[in-house]
């Protein structure tokens, strides 16, 4: 067994570092994959930041690059075929892309942890959950097997798994979907990281269990004062927990806004279309609004604005010029804090 950091450089207590900016900042990140059919540009210049204790939701359809961005932050991108030609990922002011593998490994798991979507395939079926949970403590902190198991039981209690001491030697298949996701959360929280990236943490779960898991996650986040990046395609889940939202389309952020603002007044036609196309529980509508067409193929992203073939407002300029992320203002020019939209016609979209 390799003990990664047996040296005494235990991370300094939170907040004592001189760095004052955001916890994590992604700057102009590009990721591409070299495939047989050409270069797939999965991420094309993404910028976002998360502060401690804040929840950023990254919203997008499959293929929008939301998971790839997270994998790049975590440093678990398959390279090759993946490549990061450009960009910076600053964690507490330090660029992680310039760090050595050794330095990154110290951050991964301990400072930034990830919760994956499918708990059944993320857990190893032939090892007991206690062993897998304990691995965090054995590898990162060099605890003995016995101590690690005691810690594993403590973590399972933390995420409210009933009879944790009795179930610590059970295997993943003996747990229900919701319980398995709790184990994933326990694993991510084990070393009390500063930032958690949750990639579709509740997509595979039933609604009643989904509510339990999201509540647990929110509670633990408050308790540990962690930053949380929540990656999802579900506009409903986002509305319940996020502070701010970044909407992604074809590898770019097309709109950024605080959660209330986004739902009230979307400033990008894609966001607007998404909001109109979901059926509501409390209203029985007529025909659903549907965004026509399909998400673009990443090897052949349309020129200009990537959304232009599907956009009801598209004009000639949309087919030629890539819209930058404009700051969004009120009609009288007052700036709306935290809002931005990558649309040439954001004024028309937001102010109708």
């Amino acid at each position, binding site marked *: 067994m390799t003990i990664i950091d047996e040296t005494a450089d235990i991370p300094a207590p939170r907040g004592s570092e001189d760095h004052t900016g955001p916890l994590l900042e992604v700057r102009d990140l590009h990721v591409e994959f070299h495939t047989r059919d050409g270069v797939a540009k999965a991420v094309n210049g993404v910028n976002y930041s998360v502060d401690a204790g804040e929840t950023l939701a990254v919203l997008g359809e499959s293929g929008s690059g939301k998971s790839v961005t997270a994998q790049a932050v975590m440093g678990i991108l398959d390279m090759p075929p993946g490549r990061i030609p450009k960009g910076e990922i600053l964690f507490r002011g330090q660029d992680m892309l310039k760090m050595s593998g050794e330095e990154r490994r110290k951050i991964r798991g301990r400072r930034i942890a990830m919760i994956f979507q499918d708990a059944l395939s993320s857990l190893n079926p032939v090892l007991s959950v206690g062993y897998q949970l304990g691995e965090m403590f054995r590898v990162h902190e060099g605890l003995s097997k016995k101590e690690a198991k005691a810690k594993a039981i403590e973590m399972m209690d933390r995420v409210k798994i009933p009879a944790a001491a009795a179930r610590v030697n059970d295997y993943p298949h003996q747990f229900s979907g919701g319980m398995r996701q709790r184990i994933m959360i326990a694993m991510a929280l084990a070393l009390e990281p500063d930032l958690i990236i949750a990639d579709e943490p509740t997509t595979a779960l039933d609604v009643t269990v989904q509510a339990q898991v999201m509540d647990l996650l929110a509670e633990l986040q408050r308790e540990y004062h962690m930053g949380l990046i929540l990656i999802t395609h579900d506009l409903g889940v986002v*509305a319940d927990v996020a502070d701010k939202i970044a909407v992604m389309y074809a590898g770019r952020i097309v709109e950024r806004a605080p959660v209330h603002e986004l739902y009230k007044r979307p400033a990008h036609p894609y966001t607007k279309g998404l909001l109109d196309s979901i059926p509501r529980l409390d209203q029985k509508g007529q025909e659903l609004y549907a965004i026509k067409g399909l998400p673009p193929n990443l090897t052949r992203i349309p020129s200009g604005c990537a959304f232009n073939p599907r956009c009801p407002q598209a004009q000639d300029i949309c087919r030629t010029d890539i819209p930058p992320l404009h700051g969004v203002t009120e009609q009288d020019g007052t700036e709306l804090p935290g809002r931005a939209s990558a649309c040439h016609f954001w004024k028309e979209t937001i102010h109708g």
Partner: protein
Amino acid sequence: MAELSKTDGQDEAMPNVSEVEVVDAHTEAEAVAAIEAPVERGEPILQVRDLVKHFPLTQGILFKKKIGAVKAVDGISFDLYQGETLGIVGESGCGKSTVAKLLMNLERATAGEIFYKGQDVTRLSGRALKAVRRNIQMVFQDPYTSLNPRMTVGDIIGEPFDIHPEVAPKGDRRRRVQELLDVVGLNPEYINRYPHQFSGGQRQRIGIARGLALNPEIIICDEPVSALDVSVQAQVINLMERLQDEFNLSYVFIAHDLSIVRHISDRVGVMYLGKMAEIGTDTQIYDHPTHPYTQALLSAVPVPDPEAREGRERIILTGDVPSPADPPSGCRFRTRCWKAQDKCAEEVPLLAVPERFQGVDSPAAHESACHFAEEKDVVHAA
């Protein structure tokens, strides 16, 4: 043809379930004739009575000993009317997909009856069963695994014609398939392409076209949009609604997404552990739920509106669904219910209009299988 009507006491308590008019067919030809007879709009086309499906649990390899049964579906009754959409919702493991398979006769029911136009499908065989199967088609959940990757789209959509050649004569098939592609909004020139050349939403359209090929009267949709992206989901839902009007179809729409079920359904049934907990029109279920499980389920649905999240009461259930191999005694929901009392452990609540709402002209007066049914609006912000 003699018509017998069957009534038993139980049916009277259930306004949702109408009397079954059993068509007495002595020969196969009579049965086929009954199956091919048209049904008026608003008349029941499919009537399910006390349907049960138990999967045996066995031990041993050579001498298999039955040690129990997974009670996947344990006595459910409902009607499907011509031209309507009946939504069935429930958590995973509640038996909703088993119901779909039973309706399709892909699984043999352990007990109970499924009447299609007065014919008990579970007892049919031969030509009559084939005629029923032509009229009840299915759209599956996963558009990636439900299409054979080695067949072209034309072969996939045209395959039903091999089994039922009377629908489309041989020389006419290509044209029929192209017509179907056009109906579901795909380019008819795609007929020679393979499934991998399509996106998820397009594949689901192919699955729908295959379901439509034989001009069925009923389509059973098992989670038809849950594998699709949000922006594509709306396209497929709109397509399904359009097809329903165009071809006069009846849908059984099985899903776990309550918002989508509300959008598409005329009536909704809520299932829990193999039983129907509550059934009624969409307004009755969503705006006036009386069963605690329905209330919990509805309150857990995230609403895409941060303003609404503050005003809503959320009921968060503890624990997981019990195993259907060993369901709790009495009411199956009692282990997770906040209203549970001694009575719930002893008596199985019947699916009927609760006593306190009987004779009351209110949307709350619909069938709910709870001893302590009470109206509670959990969907709208207080």
